[in-house]
């Protein structure tokens, strides 16, 4: 690609010459970076926009995440007609037919949004997309699903653009479509959509779990905001939306079998998720190539919603510091037999609504002080012949986890994988309570915590969410103290990009399923959720898809484009730097190529 740049200017001549130019700027590719230049009479005909320049100026084009196989992006740019796009290859008899349809609708909408409303004139080449899927019946995204694809674009002799996406299944096909989408840009000098007419890309992800965790209990997040989040995930090929739907603060989920949970637990009657909302979100997730995984966090992190039962102890206990990690307190009483029946009903409702391929049981931050302060629990333990040491409370916790898992399995047709957060239970001496065949451990300690190597040495599959890089809530106001929150400072996208699975896993990355950025919502609700998540989560998207050996600096120009792409989806992604730095690539960073 790099070697064709000299050719590039000649090919660009095929584009329409600009007439009646009002702007004074064009862009030129220099050493892999786009630079803003003044348009002069001799450069008038070959002038290209920043978006066109970025498409052709470096090995990975403007793609995010960077493809892992062959990348060939031709240098002839042609005008595309967004109103003349068709697709074929997956007939209506195939189970993924409607998913393809949904993905195409997103694709068309995005292309339309690229153009200013007043500049949507017709014209340009027809684009025909053909899917060749080996398994068009596959609709569930599992840990084994092939997400790779091969994308080719050629121009036919009669001037149509033929795009072919070859993949195992819908998910790979969708990823190919996402890549194609990123290669169609709006040229604001000529005011038209353009794309290369010669493309060949093969691509597949390095890790099967590229996730985002969102908490909707500390503060409610609207269904629209969640669907926007899924769209933005799609644009960065993130594939796992981990929905921390309940906590001790509120219970917005509708469990049909236990209606009181929501009646009592929702912040307001409007701040709820109906089964229809969940279905809508799950369906949107599929179209976006994203599995939606529910978490029911237990035995800690329960409270609001359970008021009418006697299953929760320490609810709203004060001072909260003695009974939990943040207010309001609340923890299940594992000694109540009725609890497990209730859990089975709840799990059943969740399985029915989400149809998940994996389930998250939470399991973090159990506070032994809470159980130890509850007379009936202490008595029950004494009756088992147990004491009140940490080991004994671990036994109690294990009792809960074992019984809860049994009930979950009763509600699933097969024994689906279960995720648990790291906790005392996942520490060295207690790890034996958890079978490595059943449980995947989600790590939320620091990236250098010895617990990680211990888990890997014992053969556990892990998902990495080390808080010192992947907790997106860090750096803002505290809410139980005067200072800033516990995991301050803010994690910039550069930090996230440098947080590589292989480093965290000390080389044992074969057991690493992937990573997950987490947004806990103590200081976030729908008003600012977009800004917190994006574009930072996209940085992790490339880390997991491409496993780049390069640092953030090499990715910066493309990252800035990706941020604009997310904005184009209607998602309020944060700004990363002054626009000037995007218009003069590599001119802002210290020791940047053009900062010398």
């Amino acid at each position, binding site marked *: 690609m790099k070697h064709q740049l000299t050719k590039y200017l000649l090919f660009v001549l095929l584009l329409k010459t600009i007439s009646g130019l009002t702007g004074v700027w064009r862009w030129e590719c220099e050493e892999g970076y786009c630079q803003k230049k003044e348009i002069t009479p001799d450069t008038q005909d070959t002038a290209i926009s920043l978006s066109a320049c970025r498409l052709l100026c470096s090995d990975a084009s403007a793609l995010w995440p960077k493809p892992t196989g062959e990348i060939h992006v031709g240098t002839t740019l042609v005008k595309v007609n967004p109103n003349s796009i068709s697709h074929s290859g997956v007939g209506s008899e195939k189970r993924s037919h409607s998913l393809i349809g949904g993905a195409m609708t997103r694709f068309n909408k995005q292309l339309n949004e690229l153009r200013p409303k007043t500049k949507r004139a017709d014209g340009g080449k027809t684009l025909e997309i053909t899917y060749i899927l080996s398994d068009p019946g596959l609709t569930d995204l599992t840990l084994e699903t092939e997400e790779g694809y091969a994308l080719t674009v050629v121009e036919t002799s009669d001037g149509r653009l033929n795009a072919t996406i070859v993949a195992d299944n819908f998910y790979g096909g969708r990823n190919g479509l996402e890549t194609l989408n990123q290669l169609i840009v709006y040229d604001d000098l000529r005011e038209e959509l353009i794309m290369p007419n010669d493309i060949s890309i093969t691509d597949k992800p390095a890790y099967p779990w590229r996730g985002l965790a969102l908490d909707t209990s*500390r503060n409610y997040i609207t269904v629209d905001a969640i669907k926007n989040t899924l769209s933005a995930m799609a644009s960065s090929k993130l594939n796992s939306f981990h929905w921390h739907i309940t906590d001790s603060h509120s219970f917005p989920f509708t469990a049909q079998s236990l209606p009181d949970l929501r009646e009592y637990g929702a912040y307001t009657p409007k701040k709820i998720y109906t089964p229809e909302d969940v279905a809508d979100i799950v369906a949107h997730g599929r179209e976006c190539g994203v599995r939606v995984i529910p978490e029911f966090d237990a035995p800690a992190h329960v409270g609001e919603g359970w008021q009418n039962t006697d299953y929760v102890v320490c609810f709203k206990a004060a001072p909260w510091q003695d009974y939990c990690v943040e207010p309001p307190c609340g923890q299940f009483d594992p000694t109540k037999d009725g609890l497990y029946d209730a859990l089975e009903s709840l799990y059943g409702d969740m399985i029915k609504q989400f149809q998940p391929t994996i389930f998250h049981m939470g399991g973090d931050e159990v506070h032994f002080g809470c159980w130890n302060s509850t007379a009936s629990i202490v008595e029950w333990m004494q009756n088992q012949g147990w004491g009140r040491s940490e080991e004994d409370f671990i036994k109690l916790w294990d009792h809960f986890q074992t019984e809860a898992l049994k009930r979950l399995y009763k509600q699933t047709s097969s024994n689906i994988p279960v995720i648990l957060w790291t906790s005392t239970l996942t520490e060295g001496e207690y790890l034996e309570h958890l079978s490595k065949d059943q449980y995947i451990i989600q790590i939320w300690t620091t990236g250098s915590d010895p617990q990680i190597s211990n888990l890997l040495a014992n053969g556990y599959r892990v998902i990495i969410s080390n808080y010192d890089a992947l907790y997106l809530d860090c*750096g803002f106001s505290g809410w139980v103290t005067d200072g800033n929150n516990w995991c301050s400072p803010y994690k910039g996208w550069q930090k996230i990009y440098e947080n590589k699975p292989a480093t965290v896993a000390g080389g044992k990355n074969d057991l690493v399923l992937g990573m997950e950025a987490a947004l806990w919502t103590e200081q976030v609700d729908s008003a600012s959720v977009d800004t917190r998540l994006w574009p930072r989560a996209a940085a992790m998207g490339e880390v997991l898809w491409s496993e780049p050996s390069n640092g953030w600096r090499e990715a910066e120009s493309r990252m800035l484009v990706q941020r604009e792409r997310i904005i184009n989806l209607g998602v309020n992604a944060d700004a990363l730097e*002054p626009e*000037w730095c995007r218009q003069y690539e590599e001119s802002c960073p210290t020791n940047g190529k053009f*900062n010398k």
Partner: protein
Amino acid sequence: MGKAYLVLMGILLCSKLYESASNSLWRWKCNQSAGACTRVSGDVDATLYPSLETCRLVCGTAGGLWPQPTVGTVLSDGLFQFSLSSLKFEFASEDNDVTTYLKEIADLFNKTLSSISASNCSNTDNTVTISIVVLTNNMDLNWKTDEGYNLEILTAGKENSVKISANTIFGARHALETVSQLIELFSNNNGEVCHVIVDEAKISDAPNYNHRGLLLDTARNFLSISSIKKHVDGMAHSKLNVLHWHITDSQSFPLELPTLPNMTKYGAYSDSKIYHPTDIAELISYAKLRGVRIIIEIDAPSHAGNGWQWGPDAGLGDLSVCINQQPWRSFCIQPPCGQLNPVNSNLYKVLKDLYSDVINMLPKGEVFHMGGDEVYIPCWNSTPEIIAYLGDKPRTTETFLDLWSDYQAQALEAFDSAVGNTNTPIILWTSHLTEVSVIEKYLSKTRYVIQTWVPAADTLPQNLLDLGYQIIASTKDTWYLDHGFWGNTVYHNWRVVYNNKIPTASGTLGGEVCMWGELVDDSSVESRVWPRAAAAAERLWSNPKTNADQAERRFYRHRERLVSRGINAEALTPRWCYQNEGEC
């Protein structure tokens, strides 16, 4: 406690407030001595409020008001139910600017209230009449404007009357803002949603500081006019009164100047990222209606680069030097570089045109901000034209400071000649020129107001006051809203913002929170600014002796208010803490 309260309580006693069971679980109880609203479940009880918002209206000395009134606040704990259609305004019918303004703010008031959606309220027997008396015809908003007001609410039978008196229209506007914060939605027993107003109140209020500002930077990244309007809305709801518009910088020049079209041609990020004079005019009147004045800053001689490239082609020589020069660290403090060329006499002719164009966009007599921060001597010291101009003079810091002050004197002359007087106040940032040892040599205390941007521990603001300068405080380590996202800076949470006390000497005109734009644009600027700017608003309006802890409940309420009025203010806490006051 008035009769209407008793009537209302009668309703509360008679039947359930809500028809739907899902609505009926929670109620709120006010503990007046603690000023706390507590969520309770259970049977309907006359002392309970149907929502936290209605409880917060009347609970505690300042209820849910933000900023808290300064002179006196008495709120009854009774509520008067009404339909918005039964709310009327009364004011003098003279055909003048004051009346026009009052009509417009009355419309705006109605719009604000109807944006929180009431539905099917059939209670049209009860009436609310807001009468406004404004004692002067003064239409100017400046540092001398009296923004105080008196407000009294009385209820007699089915008639609730709100009496406002103020010396100026701006005081009247603030009073209406306060009234809007004494009104909430109320779901009654007929399944209707009506409004309620506190049935009796007496408030006397005036700000501590006359300059209560928010700085927006639209040069590092462009902000759309609609985004800026959102900020003006937030300011109005928080009684901030100055939008300091850092409109240009070395990165871009988005302000279209009729006389100097090259500035945006070369300086705008794109054709769509330009402020046209019509946009500015519209924004100024939009802001005035919301009690906000706009102060324009054209930062110079530093922070001026893109937009100034056209000098040589126009035969005027280099108007700015070091533009986009690399490596930037050698020529400026952040990329891209650019600093006006003080030795090019054409510059001052261009500046005069520039100032004329800007002055034409502003209300008569409006102050102007000339920036004046972060002049980087190595830029000038590496420019052959400037070195040649200095000739034999030693190129010491003092020489360059003299050059800078010469620039400042000529820029001021250009401004004065453009405006046609010599007494328009000019604001400048603190810089080398404003150091205590030299400021009197360089800058007249009768012409210049100094905006300080030093940390809270720095004595410079006090020292400048002692020398007799007027200041505006923008305490860097508490009121810079961009901190926490770059370098070693720390995010200043709302408590830190609130707790920042600035000098109270009379030379302190007020203060500003600053939203520098390197890391924000339309997408995130609202949540970065709000609700933190509102925390500064109470500091500047009320300047309470107390700290953030005592303001928490009202502040949480105000954040919700901003959101319900269309501003994407950041969340402060889990909603659970909002609903369970004092338990977190």
